[in-house]
């Protein structure tokens, strides 16, 4: 359980580009836009801000799936994701009165949850993310490492489960950048702001993450392709 007294930074109103926006929220909001959190939030949100516990429970029901899924993607561990979801909603409970509607509530909450996860990762010693090292490729990670036989390309559909396994096996820093950019849809400038690194480092780290995923997927594919 993360320290619930920790003070996650108030989320900034930078909206995620949201390639996964349809993942919005819980079972209650999967079927139609009318049931999406932001359209349902207005009255419930106002009541929760006024201290109505039942309304806060409704907000949880609307957003739990999206926030839990985000945490799970970012840390790759069920128990940790549960703790982080708990912490994110506790932070929400403490800060909800400060939400002024500068951005969509779901965006604000999404950002709050990311900050909670980042704080936890920092506590665990993930130096975000040894990013400087990314600018100094180790000899074994240099560009030549990517030279492969053209016949071992990944063209065509990638097996989703294989890719998810490969992502789970990435070092934490690479996984974080990959999830934020390629899965969650944040731009490099947003990631740089969140992780306090340069935009160039974000691009470089993402590139390395994709290269590692390519290596992992090719390694899986290789035995199938060779007689």
């Amino acid at each position, binding site marked *: 359980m993360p320290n619930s007294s920790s003070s996650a930074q108030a989320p900034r109103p930078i909206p995620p580009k949201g390639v996964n926006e349809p993942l919005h929220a819980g079972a209650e909001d999967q079927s139609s836009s009318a049931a999406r959190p932001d359209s349902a939030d207005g009255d419930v949100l106002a009541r929760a801000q006024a201290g109505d516990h039942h309304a806060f429970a409704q907000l949880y029901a609307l957003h739990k799936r999206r926030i839990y899924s985000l945490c799970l993607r970012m840390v790759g561990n069920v128990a940790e994701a*549960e703790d982080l979801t708990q912490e994110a909603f506790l932070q929400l409970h403490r800060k909800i009165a400060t939400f002024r509607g500068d951005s969509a509530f779901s965006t604000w909450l999404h950002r709050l949850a990311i900050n909670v996860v980042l704080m936890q990762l920092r506590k665990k010693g993930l130096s975000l993310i040894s990013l400087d090292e990314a600018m100094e490729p180790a000899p074994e990670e240099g560009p030549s490492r990517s030279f492969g036989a*053209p016949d071992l390309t990944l063209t065509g559909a990638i097996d989703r489960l294989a890719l998810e396994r490969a992502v789970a096996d990435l070092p934490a820093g690479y996984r974080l950048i990959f999830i934020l950019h390629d899965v969650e849809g944040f731009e490099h400038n947003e990631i740089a702001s969140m992780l306090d690194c340069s935009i160039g480092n974000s691009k470089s780290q993402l590139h390395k993450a994709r290269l590692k995923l390519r290596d992992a997927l090719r390694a899986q594919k290789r035995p199938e392709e060779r007689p």
Partner: protein
Amino acid sequence: MTGDPGKMTCAEFQAQLPELVGSGEDAAAHPHLMDCDRCRALLADLETIAEAARQLFPSVEPPDEVWAHIESAIKREGK
């Protein structure tokens, strides 16, 4: 490094790739790729991975205990 993009080595091209891809330029139109199967395959793979990422990790429900813990913590904080 050579000044002519079409005469880049693979190492030079791949060193530029993070910026090229990250800046949203059409990396596939880079002159180096006209004659380089390996780098073309590399770029195609990276684009395939990025595209596939959008379908990853379907959302899942947290267990009910999470809400129970949140409620307990809120009550504790309210005392």
